[in-house]
């Protein structure tokens, strides 16, 4: 079977993987921690909710840690700056490859509106998952995996096992 057009034009996966690994290695060498992403979304959630109801957030058992007295702001954090960098890195990569296109990624005959509903629901469930796991694919699976952390390997194996089993039930979404 020949590759569909959306899978064309990228780096060889092993080359991309080694490049990603070197970025991760550099991160550990400089910072002593790995890459991440979901932490920045958590801080964004806290900030948005804080704009609506500051008291509820500052007293919240989870969010309150972002609003400790003396902290210089919910966004003054390593992971937030890293994610801002990632956005611009992705933007430069997509523009220089002339791939920027407003579109919805989905199976060929799957309706876009339903795909967006599922993206939203998936975001909710995945978002809750990142908090229980204290990280996501970058922070736990990749960074924790490379430092051979027990919990990160438990997380990674569970993520893939769950998705492989559940894939059958949403096969139309991606067909």
């Amino acid at each position, binding site marked *: 079977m020949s590759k569909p057009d959306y899978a064309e034009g990228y780096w060889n996966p092993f080359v991309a*993987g080694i490049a990603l690994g070197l970025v991760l290695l550099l991160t550990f060498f400089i910072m002593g921690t790995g890459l991440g992403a979901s932490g920045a979304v958590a801080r964004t959630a806290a900030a948005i909710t804080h704009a609506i109801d500051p008291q509820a957030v500052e007293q919240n058992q989870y969010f309150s840690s972002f609003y400790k007295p003396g902290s210089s702001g919910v966004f003054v954090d390593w992971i937030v700056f890293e994610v801002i960098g990632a956005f611009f890195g992705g933007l430069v990569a997509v523009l220089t490859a002339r791939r920027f296109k407003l579109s919805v990624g989905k199976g060929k005959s799957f309706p876009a509106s339903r795909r967006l509903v599922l993206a939203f629901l998936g975001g*909710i469930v995945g978002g809750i998952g990142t908090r229980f796991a204290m990280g996501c694919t970058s922070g736990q699976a990749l960074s924790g995996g490379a430092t051979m952390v027990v919990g990160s390997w438990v997380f990674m194996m569970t993520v893939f096992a769950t998705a492989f089993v559940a894939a059958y039930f949403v096969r139309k979404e991606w067909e």
Partner: protein
Amino acid sequence: MTGPLYLYEVISFSTSLFVAIGIGFLFGFVLERAGFGDSRNLTSIFYFRDMRVLRVMFSALVTAMLGLVILNRFGLFDYALLLEYSLLQTYFWPQLVGGVLFGLGFLVGGYCPGTAIVGVASGKIDSLVFLIGMVLGIDIFAFGMPIWGSFYKSSDMGRITLWQYFGTSMETMALIITFAALGAFVLAWVAEKWAPYDK
């Protein structure tokens, strides 16, 4: 010069924020070039169509893992410091439950958080919707703390690595994982030939 530089206080917190932007830039750039700005390339793995996600992830993981072990060997990286201060902590059951939820979110939502950022940069509307869903999900988690707050911090195993858990050395464990990754690459190739959903 021995790493980690930040833990050795070679660089300050404000310098580290500049570093964060640079590192993030490289991270996002590579993710896009790997094809991870498009949900279809991320979910193909679950249908054995294109095992790109596995290849990229495991080769990245092994590269960084071996790099750290080698730098540690030559005294250029202080792994002991990592183990004591900054290694991720293991909470067995919350991370397993988190893995199930995250796996469902990844499959149905089509992204994980980092790739969704790159998806937004690529103009993918579904990735923006995914991130909005994530914000709501994190709010649900935060305001549900009275219900699951004690579970969230349960089965605390501390900072523990696979080699400590299995009673072997860092180097042996890294070698086992490297061979497991090579095995996974072979299996990935077989799985693409099998392609059970595309018959």
